């Protein structure tokens, strides 16, 4: 059953950090769907201002993603030359592979 926020939508938490090479890392946890995908989009837009070579999404604690959420990850390819998805759960990985997004986003490991 969905974990619902106060407004009835799914709950997502987005945190920004950098890895050892200085590349931005955006950690997305909870559930990313049509009700909150815009929040991630705004974070990506602000990250894109620095024109990073590489952008990493840490998805280890992302439990659910829908097609609106996947579309935001796809659009992130316009913000950086290389976009990586780190540690997606089997559920998220399955959708990334089915839709062919794995061909344009590097999934690690």
């Amino acid at each position, binding site marked *: *059953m*969905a*974990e619902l926020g106060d407004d*009835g*939508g*799914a709950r997502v938490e987005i945190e920004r950090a950098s890895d050892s090479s200085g590349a931005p890392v955006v950690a997305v946890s909870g*559930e990313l*769907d*049509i*009700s909150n995908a815009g929040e991630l989009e705004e974070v990506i837009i602000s990250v894109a201002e620095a024109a990073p070579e590489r952008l990493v999404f840490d998805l280890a604690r992302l*439990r*659910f993603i*829908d*097609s*609106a959420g*996947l*579309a935001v990850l*796809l*659009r992130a*390819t*316009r913000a950086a030359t290389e976009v990586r998805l780190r540690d997606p759960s*089997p*559920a998220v990985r*399955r*959708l990334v592979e*089915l*839709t*062919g*997004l794995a*061909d*344009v986003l590097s999934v690690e490991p």
Partner: protein
Amino acid sequence: MSAPQRAQRFFAREKRPGVLDLTGVMGTTHATLGFEVRASAANRSFAVYAENPLPTDRRSRIESNSAFSDLHYALYIGRSQRSADLLVTNVSKLPIEGTHAAEVVPFGTAKFTLVVAPKGSLGGVFFRSLPWIIAVAGVLMTLAGALLTDRLVRRRERAERLATVLDRVAAENREMYREQRSISQTLQHALLPEKMPELRGAQVSARYVPAGAGVDVGGDWYDVVPLDDGRVFMIIGDVSGHGLRAATTMALLRHAALAYAAENPAPDGVLGKLSQFVGADHDYFATVLCTLLDIDGHGLTVASAGHMAPLVIDEAGAEYVAMTPGPALGVMRASQSRYRGATVSVRPSATVLAFTDGLVERRGEVLDVGLARLRNLALQQRLSLDDLLATLARKLTSEEHTDDTAILGIQWQS
């Protein structure tokens, strides 16, 4: 006459509920087209009226789109080609003369007349372009419906913001929400095929369940087209997101797919052409499943762009067609996208189900769990096709769904 006065006059005419009604073209310098829809909810009926401005000089802004670049077209409301009834065109001199084709297409209570001519003088090319006649008309009509829905959603959102300030109107607001949802559903039905075609040797049925949480138009669609040679082309797709953008993208893809299928219905070829049509701007993506059914030969060929394989059910069991999906549309450039058709034969009285992700996706579980749940539920049923689809829609979707669900089924008659 002001917009409220026009609305009042329009409402005064006798209307059927659940039908999208159109005014004629109103005004000259700032021409508009009015829409009205009536629906019933909670023991009362209500009506909504909206007006859309027509493009300045009626010149279309979609003419640069490659899909329409080979054609001159003019769309009129009604059966005439009078300049007063012109809605949109991409030519400067009307009426269109020389080699042309005119098609009258019903929409709601109104009729549209679409006149199309080739831009060059190549008659052969023109007749190959004829499928686009239907494509252009379909896109424009879907846009009209989507614009209206978008407007209704915006209006509700404004009312909701007010309602948070005024507690006492909250109950009224909830009621309005239900009503507008009913309108949105009415419109969604207006955008999808009104009824499924009659087939020789097989029965076809479809269900659409809108998302429980919103009133927006969704991006799911399906079409079933019987071909002259007895085969049947079937397509189901899902554009990421909701709202006007998803609905307009859906309209373009849907009608482009029908036009490509009219030229050559091979599923891998249709997906390849669609992927050229869409490109890879990474703005959105769409998953699409194309199926070509050989009813007499008891077989089907299916190709997927990031979409789940169809389920085949017969006396022996239920299995998903083994296939390798290519990338969803909009993800990769066409030159890097490869689509392969998988051909399987089916037993007499087999049922084939195609569906969008709302039917199988659940939070916190891998897609395969949902696919297994659908398979097991379909196996337990020994129902008519209509009852099977109704049961699946009831048991596998709920009010909490944030995603639309479309189910398309075809059953061979033994």
